């Protein structure tokens, strides 16, 4: 009996200990320092200077002789190639077959391929499509395009691969087909990825396997090169649009996208990232585009990049055994949505601080809209002390963060930025509290009002809007618009006018505004035109990421007004073209500017110096002068280049074409939009420097208003009821 009791107690004790011990699993941590010291080896990126005095790079291949780079000559008269060996470029060798293709066949070279059969191939364009050329032994080019119509018209080839037996694989981007031809006969075809452009990579081949990018843009399909039997499909979980596929050895494949270089196997047993894109140029999609990516020997890669100015860079990616796998310091950046400006700043920061690991995380990717759940996730991290070092506050409760002491005081940094030419009105106006500055916007949008005078006057106040709507029952007030754009823009325009002393919204004024909006919608017959010309009933307002937008293009009406939030010099083309048509200057909207890419530093950050250094990168000329469609730059030195630029040859060339529908006559019209003149640009810059009132859209209020306006528009509730509901919800929100 006693023995049994001892066993019972022992069992109880062991069970309890086991349960308690299980709770502590994962609690032990090795120090980061120990980890860093132990792990070595990672892929590093290095630049290979291009041969001096050469023309435009066209492509490259890696063969027995090593890396061969193809370029045009400096005078674009012929083509040549260089071999890279022992860290040097060889003397150029004229590629007579390419020159022959250009001169004799009249084709301009597009891309170079090394076939699995060991022969050189090139795609070249004529006025009638893309042709495939190969080098003959006598140095001439032979057209081996597998399909030609009688008049030499060919398909829109975006990608080529040639198998060991000379079978030619073609990726046609327009109809998303992949076809294989042997001796001119079609032997295999299948659907490929819907190409976003004629540069889309659709297929690649090793000696035994063909790899196609799947239609779902995230998978790779493998086929046998011998009989085209499907081997396997692997899901990569990555966006493979604009990726490059590279065959390795023994069933291993590599692909590169903005996220980095990845290794996968045909059987799906391995799928891993071998180099994080944030440490390389592939992540810098805003300015540098990856044009070609090949593998050299033993997991060594080469990437050829170009930018909008036709500058080129050749980068090498190789495994460095001595490089620390973990960088000692990490800087973490967070934003709700991906920002090109932040990406540019990250690249600038990496250039300045190559030994610092940068992690840029976003709540959502692509077109997804962030929600309150994402904010709550971030808040949980901030409370736990593990939030990012740098916070991009667009879409976040900035006021709340300032009040709660989440953001660090940036007054010192702000002073320095002001001295280096960042606009003081923007620095001081956006996120200042108790004399301290907590965040600084790296870009600003400028909302403007333009149009014919009568219609502009109507936009002065709610009463004038009402009066105009009543007096002009047959006139459209705004240009090419819809009910949601008009409703939300008007709400934001008159938000301050509707505010009471207590900070709530006047129900009476809101009701009046909604009535005016309904009248305007009726006058403009929005319902009819939306039904006829809009593809979907879904509101586009959430996708616009703007606070003011009554139109998305230049209207053809004789009389109209528009309120547009300009998001950069290029976006201003539409506004100035519209203003010219109306015969009127544009004016600022109540002194508003809309701060964008608002950067702050987490007060609990363990990297305050690096965080400040990153913020400085946001305001460098390199970052500020790049057109990212996220707002005007806030750096004076960049703004001052604008008047010269709009007058320059390059500026004159940059026009945008638009084709629209006149909603009254139903006829199509075309519009060429150009930059503003020098004087107009100077006036715009002067306007920007004088804007004092930041307008930051409150997501909760906007979402509430949008939902209720929709119900009013569909006659589910009257303007008065709508105003009542909106005011009640906003009152509750503000009372919190």
């Amino acid at each position, binding site marked *: 009996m006693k023995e049994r009791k001892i066993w019972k107690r022992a069992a109880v004790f062991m069970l309890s200990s086991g349960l308690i011990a299980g709770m502590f699993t994962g609690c032990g941590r090795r120090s980061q320092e120990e980890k860093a010291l132990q792990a070595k080896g990672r892929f590093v990126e290095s630049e290979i200077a291009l041969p001096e005095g050469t023309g435009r790079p066209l492509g490259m291949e890696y063969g027995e002789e090593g890396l061969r780079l193809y370029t045009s000559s400096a005078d674009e008269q012929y083509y040549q190639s260089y071999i890279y060996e022992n860290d040097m470029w060889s003397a150029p060798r004229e590629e007579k077959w390419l020159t022959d293709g250009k001169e004799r066949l009249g084709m301009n070279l597009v891309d170079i391929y090394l076939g699995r059969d060991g022969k050189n191939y090139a795609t070249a364009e004529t006025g009638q499509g893309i042709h495939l050329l190969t080098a003959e032994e006598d140095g001439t080019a032979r057209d081996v395009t597998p399909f030609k119509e009688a008049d030499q018209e060919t398909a829109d080839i975006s990608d080529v691969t040639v198998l060991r037996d000379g079978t030619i694989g073609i990726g046609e981007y327009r109809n998303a087909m992949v076809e294989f031809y042997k001796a001119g006969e079609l032997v295999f075809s299948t659907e490929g990825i819907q190409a976003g452009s004629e540069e889309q990579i659709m297929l690649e081949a090793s000696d035994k396997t063909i790899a196609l990018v799947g239609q779902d843009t995230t998978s790779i399909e493998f086929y046998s090169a011998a009989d085209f039997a499907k081997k396997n499909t692997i899901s990569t979980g990555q966006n493979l649009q604009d990726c490059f596929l590279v065959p390795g050895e023994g069933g291993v494949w590599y692909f590169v996208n903005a996220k980095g270089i990845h290794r996968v196997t045909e059987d799906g047993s391995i799928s891993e990232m071998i180099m994080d894109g944030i440490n390389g140029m592939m992540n810098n999609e805003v300015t540098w585009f990856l044009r070609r990516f090949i593998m050299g020997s033993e997991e060594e890669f080469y990437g050829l990049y170009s930018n909008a100015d036709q500058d080129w860079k050749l980068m090498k990616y190789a495994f460095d055994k001595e490089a620390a796998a973990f960088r000692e310091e990490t800087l973490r950046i967070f934003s709700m949505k991906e920002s090109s400006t932040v990406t540019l700043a990250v690249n600038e920061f990496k250039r300045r601080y190559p030994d610092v690991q940068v992690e840029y995380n976003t709540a959502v990717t692509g077109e997804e809209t962030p929600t309150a759940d994402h904010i709550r996730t971030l808040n949980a991290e901030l409370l736990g002390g593990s939030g990012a070092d740098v916070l991009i506050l667009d879409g976040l409760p900035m006021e709340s963060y300032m009040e709660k002491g989440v953001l660090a005081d940036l007054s010192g940094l702000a002073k320095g930025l002001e001295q280096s030419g960042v606009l003081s009105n923007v620095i001081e106006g956006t996120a200042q509290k108790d004399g301290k500055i907590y965040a600084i916007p790296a870009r600003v949008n400028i909302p403007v009002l333009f149009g014919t005078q009568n219609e502009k006057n109507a936009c002065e106040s709610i009463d004038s809007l009402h009066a105009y709507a009543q007096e002009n029952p047959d006139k459209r007030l705004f240009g090419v618009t819809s009910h949601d754009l008009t409703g939300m823009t008007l709400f934001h325009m008159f938000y301050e006018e509707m505010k009471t002393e207590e900070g709530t919204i006047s129900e009476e004024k809101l009701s009046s505004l909604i009535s005016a909006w309904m009248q305007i919608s009726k006058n403009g017959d929005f319902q009819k035109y939306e039904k006829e010309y809009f593809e979907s009933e879904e509101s586009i307002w959430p996708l616009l990421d703007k606070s003011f937008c009554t139109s998305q293009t230049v209207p053809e009406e004789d009389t109209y007004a528009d309120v547009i939030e300009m998001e950069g010099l290029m976006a201003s083309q539409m506004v100035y073209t519209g203003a010219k048509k109306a015969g009127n200057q544009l004016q600022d909207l109540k002194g508003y500017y809309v701060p964008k890419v608002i950067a702050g530093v987490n007060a609990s950050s363990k990297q305050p110096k690096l965080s400040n250094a990153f913020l400085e990168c946001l305001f460098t000329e390199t970052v500020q002068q790049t057109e990212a469609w996220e707002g005007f730059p806030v750096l004076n030195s960049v703004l001052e280049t604008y008047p010269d630029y709009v007058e320059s040859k390059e500026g004159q060339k940059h026009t945008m074409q638009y084709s629209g529908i006149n909603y009254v006559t139903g006829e199509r019209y075309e519009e060429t939009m150009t930059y503003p003149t020098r004087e107009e640009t100077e006036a715009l810059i002067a306007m920007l420097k004088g804007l004092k009132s930041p307008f930051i859209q409150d997501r909760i209020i906007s979402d509430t208003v949008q939902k209720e306006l929709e119900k009013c528009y569909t006659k589910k509730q009257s303007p008065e009821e709508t105003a009542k509901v909106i005011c009640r919800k906003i009152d509750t929100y503000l009372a*919190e």
Partner: protein
Amino acid sequence: MRKKEEKIAYCFLLPSLFGTTVFIFLPFLDVVRRSFFQAVGGTFVGLGNYREVLHNAAFLQALSHTVKFFGICLPILLTVSFGMAVGILQLPGPGKWIESLFLLPMALPVASIVVFWKLLFHDNGGINQLLSWFGLKGSDWMNTGAAFGVLVGTYIWKNLGYDMILWLTGLAAISGEQYEAAKVSGANRFQIFVYITLPQMKTCAVMTGILSFINAFRVFREAYLIAGEYPHNSIYMLQHLFYNWFTKLDIQKMSAAAVMLAAGISILFLLLEWWNEKEERQ
């Protein structure tokens, strides 16, 4: 012997107690601590957060709606579920499957209920369709005062079966001999119910009431999924407020409100417990 048995009992309770302490009690102590400090930064503000919360219009509004919701829901739920339990007890053996039927709503995932509710109460939903057949005009149910009724109905529908099972447990504990003796003494059904059944259900009533009270807080999930962060005023409750406060990082207010709520509920439960013990002693 009793002490020894108690010791063994505590040993078995130890892991659960430990988990509850680590994951509930200690975090709650942290919440109490935070209620006296600023949200971030650690500045001590004393009772400032409590004063701020008690003067917060949104808090008072949410509190009144919550109290109203509980005040209406709980009596209805307890009464109806008790009545059904008594009724089911009278059913012959094969009729017991009805018990399982009433438990189904509790087993349904919240997401499924939300989808179903949206189909039913949407502008173009089932109820409005039905009304249009009779020439009546429908309504945007979840954005009018009817939202409160919908939420009450949801709560009662979901918890009816659960409460009924709890009542049935209490009813089953009453000895059949007492009923027989009462019948023999000439008592009618009503007298048996009032003088034998009801008095012996007090403890069960307290327990069922407490569990129903706790479950009432869970109806926020349905309310939030159907009507969002800022629903119609009638169903804007404390949980909405806490949720929204967290989005704005108003942790100090959340903590103060949570402490006050916990204190209020604890006092209520203690009073119930005291009354229950008093009744038992009597």
